[in-house]
């Protein structure tokens, strides 16, 4: 006990020292004023004292859990067990779908708008989940594909007057093609190099869009992009928001359906195996290049597609919407929710997008919290809020038919 107290005291003193110049002194070299904020020192001391206790508690708890797992004990939470129960899953899905459908009837346009952006992030999260969560390819420039989709629609709409519905698949395909083209040079790269190169791609995209004015209209962006058409009718702002909301719901369902099928297919298993151990995977006869490319390109597909929707929703895009921070947010959605877990990613997107939206006081701290959450999740719960559900199969065994390849 005393030992703990002493340790926390040391930690708290250390952090007081560490944060002193940045938290206490605020200097404005422009107006030549210095502000001393001594109260902050107290807050830092208090917070770090409590956090160090919490930190140690969590570490011991984690160690205990590891010990239980090694003994072969049950480490899945009640929630996890409930989710593995198929009949519960179907019921829950039904309720959620119903709630999603009546949402815009119950709430106002503003709420629907917020919900649309959360749903956009759900699709982005699910797309990135393919490359990061399933295939283990850390992509830090994912937002570039989103941008490619958005710009595809904006430009095709601007120059050729193409509509939303025809561009939606085109956006996805263009995203996919970019995925393949960018994927080729990085096939041979190891995980961490890949992360940096994709980060580079993301930044190149933004710089090119900012400077290639003849194509992209530069930093000022493209305005007056058409909203989705509804059988040629002009919709009011409120109606069109609701319309986009339903399109988004459909797109989310479509994404969930497809990614779920992919995950539980021969291709999906190859992705997961590649994530787990590349050498064993290739020794099992799996073509690395093809598997990597397919994961990368299919991840990009969703970003491209939802990019089209984003452009049509905001009716205005510029390069500033496609920064590294966006990629980081999408990545934290996947990490927080649970890498590889579709349900987890959906939940992660809602938490990360809606929480700052509804807690305005908190929204200033949102990136701070995202960053901290990524670290904390990696240390204490690398599997995310909802870890990947275990897949079980039906089989008869040798007593059944003996068709053995």
């Amino acid at each position, binding site marked *: 006990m005393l030992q703990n107290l002493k340790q926390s005291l040391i930690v708290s003193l250390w952090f007081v020292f560490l944060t002193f110049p940045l938290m206490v002194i605020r200097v404005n070299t422009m107006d030549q004023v210095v502000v001393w904020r001594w109260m902050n020192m107290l807050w830092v001391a208090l917070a770090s004292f409590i956090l160090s206790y919490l930190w140690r508690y969590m570490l011991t708890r984690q160690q205990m859990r590891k010990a239980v*797992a090694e003994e*072969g004990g049950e480490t899945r939470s009640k929630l996890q067990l409930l989710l593995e129960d198929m009949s519960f899953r179907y019921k829950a899905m039904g309720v959620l779908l119903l709630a999603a459908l009546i949402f815009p009837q119950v709430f106002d346009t503003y709420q629907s708008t917020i919900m649309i952006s959360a749903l956009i992030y759900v699709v982005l999260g699910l797309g990135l989940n393919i490359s990061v969560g399933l295939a283990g390819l850390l992509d830090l420039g994912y937002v570039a594909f989103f941008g490619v989709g958005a710009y595809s629609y904006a430009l095709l709409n601007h120059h050729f007057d193409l509509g939303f519905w025809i561009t939606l698949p085109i956006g996805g395909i263009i995203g996919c093609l970019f995925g393949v083209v960018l994927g080729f040079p990085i096939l041979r790269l190891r995980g961490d190099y890949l992360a940096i190169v994709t980060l580079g791609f993301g930044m190149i995209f933004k710089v090119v869009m900012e400077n290639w004015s003849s194509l992209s209209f530069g930093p000022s962006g493209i305005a007056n992009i058409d909203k989705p058409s509804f059988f040629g009718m002009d919709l009011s702002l409120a109606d069109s928001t609701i319309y986009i909301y339903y399109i988004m719901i459909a797109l989310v369902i479509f994404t969930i359906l*497809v990614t779920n*099928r*992919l995950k539980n*297919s*021969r*291709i*999906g*298993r*190859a992705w*997961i*195996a590649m994530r*787990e*151990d590349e*050498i*064993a*995977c*290739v*020794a*099992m*006869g*799996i*073509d*690395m290049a093809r598997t990597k490319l*397919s994961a990368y390109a*299919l991840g990009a597909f969703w970003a491209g597609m939802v990019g089209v929707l984003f452009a049509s929703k905001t009716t205005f895009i510029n390069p500033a919407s496609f920064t590294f921070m966006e990629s980081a947010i999408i990545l934290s959605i996947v990490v927080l929710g649970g890498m590889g877990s579709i349900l987890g990613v959906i939940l992660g997107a809602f938490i990360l997008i809606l929480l700052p939206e509804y807690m305005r006081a908190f929204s200033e701290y949102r990136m701070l919290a995202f960053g901290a959450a990524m670290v904390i999740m990696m240390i204490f719960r690398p599997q995310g809020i909802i870890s*990947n559900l*275990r*897949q*079980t*199969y*039906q*089989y*008869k*065994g*040798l007593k*059944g*038919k*003996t*068709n*053995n*390849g």
Partner: protein
Amino acid sequence: MADKKHKLLEVKGLTMDFGGLRAVDSVSLEVHEGEIAALIGPNGAGKTTFFNCVTGIYNPTKGDILLHPKGLETRRLNGLKPNKVTEMGLARTFQNIRLFPDMTVLENVMIGRHCRTKAGIFRAILRDKGVREEEQLIVESSYQLLEKVGLEDFANEFSKNLPYGAQRRLEIARAMATDPFLLLLDEPAAGMNPQETADLDQLIRKISEEEKIAILLIEHDMKLVMHISNPIYVMEYGKKIAEGSPQEIKDNPKVVEAYLGEETDA
């Protein structure tokens, strides 16, 4: 007698250099149909490097690796990617177990079926009847392999939670799922207790006799090697120093010398 049997794998003068270091020095070796061949030698003799060359993980500096599948034309394996080698019918396990820890035991084996099945991305999304049937076939045949290695009760466990000996057997099942005619086992008995080793002995024989898969294994457990394998090849410092039947190997003074102080039960 060995002459009459069909030659499956033929390695001629295999040499592998790492920078200035010669890890494998012109080693030749053959594996025939129905054989359980063994590659033994002290630690660091280059046995695993030899495996890595044959299975395409390294591209050898010199020499030929020829595969003679029955009824098909001979293929030279040099420079082929590991997945191509596996497709050709040569599967392997790893010395330091390399399972897919966060996949279930059954899924680990199902991965082995990958190169023998073909559903692509679009068909995986559409999941038509053919794909569903193929999936079911993958599940069934994988489960049957688990039954063969005695792991059917663990089918839905995560492979990381398996005991050590079971993990080694799972690696064998996973390799067998690729439909090989030649299986390369890298120290399959490492870390096993005597009972597990005895079971392994049985299993390897069963694979050889019932499944008609030829086997080449690296092993340190001399009791196991002498009991099941013939012929035996011995490597030391990257060179092959002896080959022959268990009795010939036991009587070979060179081998005894190489193992002096290394293994006492040889």
